[in-house]
């Protein structure tokens, strides 16, 4: 394997090119499928394998920018992008992001900010995955048990579905009201939409993350966007934030261009595969896989924190294994589901 080792002049280290392609491919598939940047996988992965944290973040952002171009184009072709909603999300997120970073600066002056940020990060991971698991198993029990439309079979009137958080938010009537036909939303207060994206932007700025994994569930559960449109629309925002991140980090000299270049080879291929897989997996399936991924990423963060307390390197190793294991397993699941869906489609065409 040493044959594939290359010297990276900006980071000043030797790195295995095959490993870079593999990391890129995994994050590309996950990014294209879930509509997230995947920084929370790539940054720690590069860091674990020897990159300085600053280079890991900068190189990851450059890669996110490159991989998002093709995936966004593919989601657009599938009708998965609500451009109007996406544009509003970018504007409101920037305002929220600025607010979040200002709070961080204020807290820094007061003292120990790191503990608050990390606590919030873990809380968010646990909260999001719990919400999505709860939603999957409570709102979809019939489908999970393989019983479809039992009320119709028995000749009964179907039970009225319980109002979701999004339904309740749509009922709040604060003008101006706005519609998102591409997402099937007839009327919602612009202020509600702005507030939601400002909040997700605030969390991104406060936690120092891209925010794709916060925005995607917010689009689904708070705004009521269909899952595949949430994925595409979120990816559009990721593309713009990735472009800005790539430029600003390379100005600061923190992008290792050779590594980003090699990683992008795997990521571009992976992103196209991930985006195509959305066609074959239903919305609830995407939500379940997303919840699983967030839960395992939360476990990895918890293990990393235990390592920092105890100093026992076994925990750090375990954190890396859980993180990379989750990324590789999820990638395999998505590719297998894509192949199964494609085969089913071919059989139906015959």
């Amino acid at each position, binding site marked *: 394997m040493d044959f594939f080792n290359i010297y990276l*002049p*900006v980071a*000043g280290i030797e790195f295995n090119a095959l490993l870079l392609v593999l990391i890129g491919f995994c994050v590309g598939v996950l990014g294209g499928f879930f509509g997230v940047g995947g920084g929370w996988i790539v940054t720690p992965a590069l860091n674990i394998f020897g990159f*300085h944290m*600053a*280079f890991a973040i900068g190189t990851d952002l*450059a*890669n996110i*920018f*490159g*991989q998002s*171009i*093709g*995936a966004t184009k593919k989601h657009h*072709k*599938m*009708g*998965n992008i609500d451009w109007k909603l996406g544009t509003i999300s970018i504007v409101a997120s920037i305002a929220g992001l600025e607010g979040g970073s200002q709070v961080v600066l204020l807290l820094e002056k007061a003292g*120990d900010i*790191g*503990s*608050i940020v990390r*606590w919030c990060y*873990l*809380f968010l991971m*646990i*909260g999001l995955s719990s919400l999505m698991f*709860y939603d999957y198993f409570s709102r979809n029990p019939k489908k999970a048990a393989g019983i479809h439309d039992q009320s119709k079979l028995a000749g009964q009137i179907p039970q009225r579905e319980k109002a979701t958080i999004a339904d309740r938010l749509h009922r709040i009537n604060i003008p101006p009201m706005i519609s998102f036909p591409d997402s*099937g939303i007839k009327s919602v207060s612009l202020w509600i939409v702005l507030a939601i994206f400002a909040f997700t932007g605030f969390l991104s700025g406060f936690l120092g993350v891209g925010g794709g994994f916060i925005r995607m569930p917010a689009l689904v559960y708070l705004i009521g966007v*269909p*899952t*595949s449109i949430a994925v595409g629309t979120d990816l559009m925002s990721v593309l713009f934030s990735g*472009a800005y991140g*790539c*430029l600003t980090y*390379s*100005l600061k*000299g*923190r*992008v290792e*261009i*050779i590594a980003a*270049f090699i990683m992008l080879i795997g990521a*571009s*291929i992976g*992103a*196209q*595969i991930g*985006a*195509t897989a*959305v*066609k074959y997996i239903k*919305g609830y399936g995407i939500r379940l896989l997303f919840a699983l991924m967030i839960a395992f990423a939360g476990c990895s963060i*918890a293990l990393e*924190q*235990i390592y*920092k*307390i105890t100093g026992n390197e076994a925990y750090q190793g375990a954190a890396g294994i859980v993180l990379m294991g989750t990324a590789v397993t999820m990638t395999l699941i998505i590719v297998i589901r*894509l192949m199964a869906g*494609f085969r089913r489609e071919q059989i139906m065409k015959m």
Partner: protein
Amino acid sequence: MSLKRILSTALLSIVLVCTIPVVDQAARTAIASEKQETALSMTIDTKKLSGINLVIARMYNEDRVLYAAMVTIVMAVLGTVLAFLTDLVLKALGLEVSRISHRE
């Protein structure tokens, strides 16, 4: 409120309460270790470099704006070209996409 919801809320609360001291301590340790981390060098030693590595290193050292522009343009162009090529391969394999119905 259903029993299922009460149990899941209680379980979530217990997990959160248990993680507070662990996370707090971890964060303190992390901050201490971050302070000890050495500062990154802002210039690359070009003595042992040659070829493309030397070109990149010189650009990085001499003109950071040009380096940033090059990185951004290269990533955009490469991302577009690779996506186009992958799309062609996927189409050839029969994995062509068109407008989809949004099923939940």
